[in-house]
């Protein structure tokens, strides 16, 4: 049965829902000590459900920012709960982001396609997300090219601006022109919404278990706050 079949990742929409739930609930109950237990529990839960890499990745930034805000609010307001509230708020943001960090753009696009969300929106989303690494690469290449022309000195803003902005804009225009033409010639049309999906995103027992456990956590938090 498909519901019990093993799959590689949590359903993107389910992951998004779980992330948003943790974020909102964490922020609402941030002023309670119980929220700390809820967020810690959610963190452990996410590790167990395969998000361990992202959990480890966010940890250093969370620890540093938490320490700074905790000390600032603890000593600023002379109150332990003020410090804990700030840590909880940061925790809600960081833990809430974890499921979203692991969603492959194409999986999200396909999930939304299955829900008959217009392809213009889903494709726009996919391209926007895919554009980020490309943009990073372009900026790195332009910075490098500036050095080769002797225009990499930030202390000379007039030259720096020209040598960065002009190639950057030209590249962006060229890339977006080519990309737009390429997707149109590969069959995309804003007027048509009858695209098919290569890999269907399904909901299975693991997705439902994760959602139920998060809901149990929310209920416990509401009861023991």
């Amino acid at each position: 049965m498909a519901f019990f079949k093993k799959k590689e990742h949590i359903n993107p929409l389910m992951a998004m829902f779980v992330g948003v739930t943790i974020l909102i609930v964490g922020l609402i109950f941030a002023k309670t000590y119980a929220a700390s237990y809820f967020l810690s529990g959610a963190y452990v839960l996410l590790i167990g459900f395969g998000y361990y890499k992202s959990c480890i990745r966010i940890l250093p930034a969370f620890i540093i920012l938490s320490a700074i805000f905790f000390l600032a609010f603890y000593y600023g307001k002379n109150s332990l709960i003020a410090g804990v509230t700030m840590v909880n708020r940061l925790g809600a943001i960081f833990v809430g982001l974890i499921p979203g960090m692991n969603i492959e753009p194409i999986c999200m696009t396909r999930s939304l396609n299955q829900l008959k969300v217009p392809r213009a929106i889903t494709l726009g989303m996919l391209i926007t997300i895919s554009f980020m690494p490309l943009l990073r690469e372009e900026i790195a290449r332009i910075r490098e090219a500036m050095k080769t022309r002797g225009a990499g000195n930030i202390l000379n803003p007039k030259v720096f601006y020209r040598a960065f902005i002009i190639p950057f804009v030209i590249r962006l225009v060229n890339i977006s022109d080519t990309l737009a033409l390429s997707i149109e010639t590969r069959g995309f049309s804003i007027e048509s919404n009858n695209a098919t999906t290569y890999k269907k995103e399904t909901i299975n027992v693991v997705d439902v278990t994760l959602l139920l456990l998060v809901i149990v956590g929310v209920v416990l938090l509401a009861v023991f706050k």
Partner: protein
Amino acid sequence: MRAVELNNISFKYNEKAIIFKDASFFVDYGEVVLVSGHSGEGKSTLMSIISGIIPNVNYGEISGDVLIQGENIKDKKLNYVCRKVGIVLQNADSQIINKYVEDEIVFACENIAMPQDKMQKQINIVCNLLKLNPKDKTRSLSGGQKQKLITASTLAMGQKILILDEPLANLDKDGAKKLMDVLKSLAKSGYAIIIVEHRLDVVMPYVDRVYHVGNKNIELIDDKEKYLLSQIKKVEVNTNIVDTKELIFRLDNVGCKIKEKEILKNISFDIQKGSRVVLLGENGVGKTTLIRIISRLQKATEGKVSQYIDEKFDKKLYSKRQWFKKVGIVYQNPDYQLFMPTVRKEIAFGVKDNKEIDDILEMFNLKEFENTHPQSLSEGQKRRLTIAAVAGYKPDVLVLDEPTVGQDYKVLQEMVAILNRLHETTKNTMITITHDARCAKALCDRAIILKKNGEVFVGGPEDVDRYFGN
């Protein structure tokens, strides 16, 4: 029924830019047709007309009949035409939107609502044809592999008419030959293939018919052998070969790993001062990485590169600005290196003396464009300008990454002549990466051939011929 038929086509972008006047053209199923001609004469416009890009995306005034599979496509939407005609555009890098090869391939299939089971079959077929791994990450592919991926994505849609705009631009000789084999086999199985390509030496054996675009016309070439031979003539080698013992670079067991992926391993060779070195090798063998390491844009993870330009560059703290004045780097894409408002100012950025600027403008045949905006120049002119701007610093070493890619024969000849003139005047050391058999020998005193197994072969100009199989 013909695959493509253009009858008495006239097209103009505006009154000043008339591209075709009463031109006709046809392609039958089962044949590979080459569209040749100088840059800017209308090859891309022709491809855009056949594929419906004109008038749907690019505008202009068109008259005459464009028949695809016997049907007039006047007033037909691009979305309709692209189901009949597949077009593979240039600049593959800018067209990839998915993280994995298989997702990129099925992107087009999803758009045209292909059933799921057929998509899987199409992935298997095109990956097998073009030797792609469907599970590979797209960002880890080399330039040539990305070009293959975009070709695969179009092929998977299953149209019987295929247009390829410079498909060989980033492919090495073996990659180019393999792609042409695939296209020829598709033609034999009933496809109509139209290719726009400047590397006629590679395309020639596979082509059934040739059209020349120019003078507002599309002319069918009767004697294709004569035409092709006139276009693939190698650039004459008329520079004295430099053979000196004085070194400018020495590479000792240089290696480079990026995220555990080994790009280069145990590379050792010397580069003589004042010599012209051509770096050859297949796609993905690490040529670009190697010149990036030599020119200090990237660090080697193993081994050492010794430089003999100036001892001051051996110190831990040295001026990068001074280094790049001594080692000039010219990128494959000129858009990265041009940023001033006029051609003259672009050169003046590195050269203060007016007479020197004039000399450089003369040498690079750019005098008539001195007040033109660099971005409004043609691709070949932009490349010349980039080299001129970098050469303005009088660098001891000039590093060139594919200086002739996508250029027609006339522009290529001009480029090679300028580079050799510059070399003779300044006595610089010139390191060039190229896949272009027409000019490699003309830019070469020493050939360095990188092989996939990490082996390096160092030879002379005669080895360039051997490498390209001439």
